[in-house]
C-alpha cells in the first residue's frame, strides 16, 4: 500500500474550530476500516496536539502519513517553544492561563496522554523558534 498523506493547517486564532483536523482524520481512518481502538488513539493524540498548538503556539501544521505498518504524525509550530521538554511531559505540568483553564484545558495531561496513546513520541523544541512533535502509532 502506498502511504497516504493528509495535511492540515491549524488556525491558532480559533479555539472553536480546534479539533476539526482530528475529527477529519477520524473520518478518514474510519472509512479506511481501521479498528476503533486504533482510531481513538490516533484521534486523541492528534486532538491533544492540535489543542496545544492553538492554546500555546498560535497554530501550525499537522501532517499525517498512513502507512501499512504505522501512522506517523508531524506537528509543527512557530510558537514560543518549550524550555524544559522533560518537565512539560510530566502529568500535571501546565503553563496554561486561567482563561484556558476556564475552557476545560490546562490539566497538564495533553502531552502525557499523547505519550500514552502512541508507540513513539519525540518532542523537539527551541525556545523562540517553535516546537515539532513526532508521533507514531504502530499497526499490527
Amino acid at each position, binding site marked *: 500500500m502506498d502511504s497516504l498523506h493528509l495535511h492540515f493547517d491549524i488556525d491558532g486564532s480559533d*479555539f*472553536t474550530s*480546534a*479539533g476539526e483536523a*482530528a*475529527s477529519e482524520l*477520524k473520518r478518514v481512518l474510519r472509512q479506511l476500516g481501521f479498528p*476503533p*481502538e486504533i482510531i*481513538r*488513539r490516533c*484521534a*486523541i493524540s492528534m*486532538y*491533544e496536539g492540535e*489543542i496545544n498548538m492553538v492554546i500555546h503556539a498560535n497554530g501550525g501544521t499537522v501532517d499525517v502519513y498512513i502507512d501499512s505498518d504505522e501512522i506517523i504524525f508531524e506537528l509543527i509550530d512557530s510558537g514560543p517553544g518549550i524550555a524544559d521538554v522533560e518537565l512539560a511531559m510530566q502529568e500535571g505540568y501546565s503553563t496554561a492561563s486561567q482563561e484556558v483553564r476556564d*475552557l*476545560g*484545558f*490546562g*490539566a*497538564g*495531561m*495533553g502531552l*502525557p*496522554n499523547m505519550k*500514552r*496513546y502512541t508507540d513513539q513520541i519525540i518532542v523537539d523544541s527551541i525556545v523562540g523558534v517553535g516546537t515539532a512533535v513526532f508521533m507514531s502509532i504502530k499497526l499490527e
Partner: protein
Amino acid sequence: MTIKEVRDILRARVLCGEHLLSQEVHSACGADLMSDVLAFVKDQSVLLTGLLNPQVIRTADMMDMVCIVFVRGKLPDESMIELAKSRDIVLMCTDLRMYSACGKLYKGGLVGLEC
C-alpha cells in the same frame, strides 16, 4: 441502561438526538477538565460536565461517547447543538449539580470505570 433512562433518572431535558434515546450506555464519567476525560481510552458512553464550550462536544466525539449531560442547568448554544447533531451525540441538561447527577446515575446502575 438506555439514554432514555439517563434522561428520566436525571429529570433532564433532551436538546438534540431524540432519535438516539434507545441506545444502550454502559459507563459514564463526570469531569470539567477535558484532558482528564481523554486520559481514559476505555469505552465510556456518557459525559457529565459543567463546562460549556464546543470542545466538550469534540472531546466526546474523540472518545466515541454518545451522550453529554450538562449539569447545573447549563444550556449550550445553537452552534454546539449543531456540532453535536453532526456527530450523532445526544445533548441533555439537568438542573442537578454534578455530585447529585453522578450519584443518581451510579445508584441506577451506570458505573464508572476504574483505571
